[in-house]
């Protein structure tokens, strides 16, 4: 969706909070989150936005519901065709 060159590479399309995102194979869900309008993965206890921090499965800031499974870390999850990602942001 961003760069025309990607059309030639092998890509997958997933939905993040209802929005379609097309990314190259091998992209992590956390990286794909940056292709939506915001880089927000959750809201803190006061409703302020948070985004991915460590990228390595340590900080748990990027947890989301992926294909119905809650509390999955986006940074350790590769994007797949027809995947559904819902954040609590």
């Amino acid at each position, binding site marked *: 969706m961003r760069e025309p060159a990607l059309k030639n590479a092998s890509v997958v399309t997933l939905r993040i909070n209802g929005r379609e995102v097309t990314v190259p194979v091998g992209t*992590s869900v956390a*990286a794909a989150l940056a292709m939506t309008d915001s880089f*927000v993965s959750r809201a803190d206890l006061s409703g302020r936005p948070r985004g991915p*921090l460590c990228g390595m499965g340590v900080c748990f800031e990027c947890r989301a519901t992926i294909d119905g499974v809650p509390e999955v870390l986006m940074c350790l999850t590769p994007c797949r065709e027809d995947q559904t990602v819902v954040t609590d942001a």
Partner: protein
Amino acid sequence: MREVCDLVVVGAGPGGLAAACRAAEAGLDVLVLDAQPEPGGQVWRGEARQGSNRLARRWLTRFSASGARFRPGARVIAAPEPGVLLVEEGPSSFAVRYGRAVLATGARERFLPFPGWTLPGVLGVSGLQVLVKDGLPIRGKRVVLAGTGPLLLAAAATIHSHGGEVLYIAEQASAASHWGFALQLWRQPAKLLQGALMSAKLVSVPTSTDAWVTAAEGERRLEAVRLSVRGREEHLHCDYLGAAYGLVPNLEVARLLGCETTSGAVVVDDRLQTRVPKVHAVGELLGIGGVDQALVTGELAGLVAAEQPVPLALERSWHRVRTFAAQLARHDAPRAELLRLATPDTLLCRCEDVPMSALEGCQNLREARLYARLGMGACQGRTCGTAAQTLFGWTGEDVRPPCLPARIGSLRLPSDVSSTPTRES
């Protein structure tokens, strides 16, 4: 469900891969567990897909030919009895019964709180680097990096090569310490060359020693950063900030198994055996030392686990990489100013939203947890606990199972594991 193996290796970074290769090549049945979808750990992240690093390519190829079994997406959550691990894998779980274990859980970044560090767009230095490797669009984005040591340059090189605009590299170490460290590298020609190559690519990027980020600013996400650069303030508009101060070992699984630790590293003998029989530790768990240390200690532990002789050259390499690790630790030690950046309102625990002010009167991590909920959230204190240890000089606490958030069903020990089966060989 259960798995039985001669050797379980926890972590598939360079240390775990080297141990697994050596042991599997000597005929052991080896099972390798890693939370990531591919082998390579953090330092070789993405190399299994698009290899540009020759050393990584060599080890990953050797690993796939070694006969070792690899379970991606597998997270160790508990160790209910000696020789047994409980592992969660996606929506299912299994138990592993092992003869020996090599722990190669690597390291994470040390985060220190500063005003605005919870804004989206503020990440770790290597955190931002791995997201870029994983496909985060960085072309044309403005990036500031603040941290310490060789990781800063490595992250800058990755971001630069993906088309990101690195506006500034702030190295917290003093000029004397930094250049003293660089001069010591003549003992490590490969590292000197690596550093020189990375610096050459980044020659146009403003870089300063005695420099660090004092605040991140923005409404819904990062918009600008304030830096302290040799005593004067800089204000830069940017899209991403990578800010973290060196690495700390991931000690949770080692502590869960009862391994003794001292000064933030696992205690081992000259055969890399921990104080727990048949459990070895390698790589960053011994103190931050990078890829070379991970490979050398991994090979050593793999040979010892398989009861093979250890070549003298390998022992010598280990002593050489230890020297580098000691120098790195002195260089990367966070300076005093970094410990005073957080204001009373700045959150220390990001999971439970615990501000600095809530810790007044707390004397240790246990009190901070009981009175202020520090470290009670999803990451179990991996981020704030490490920060609090650096900020206040507190010592780490014992790890209790589960050492990661887990489903209740994953903690049930399958009945066929609790007996004492031995592998039919």
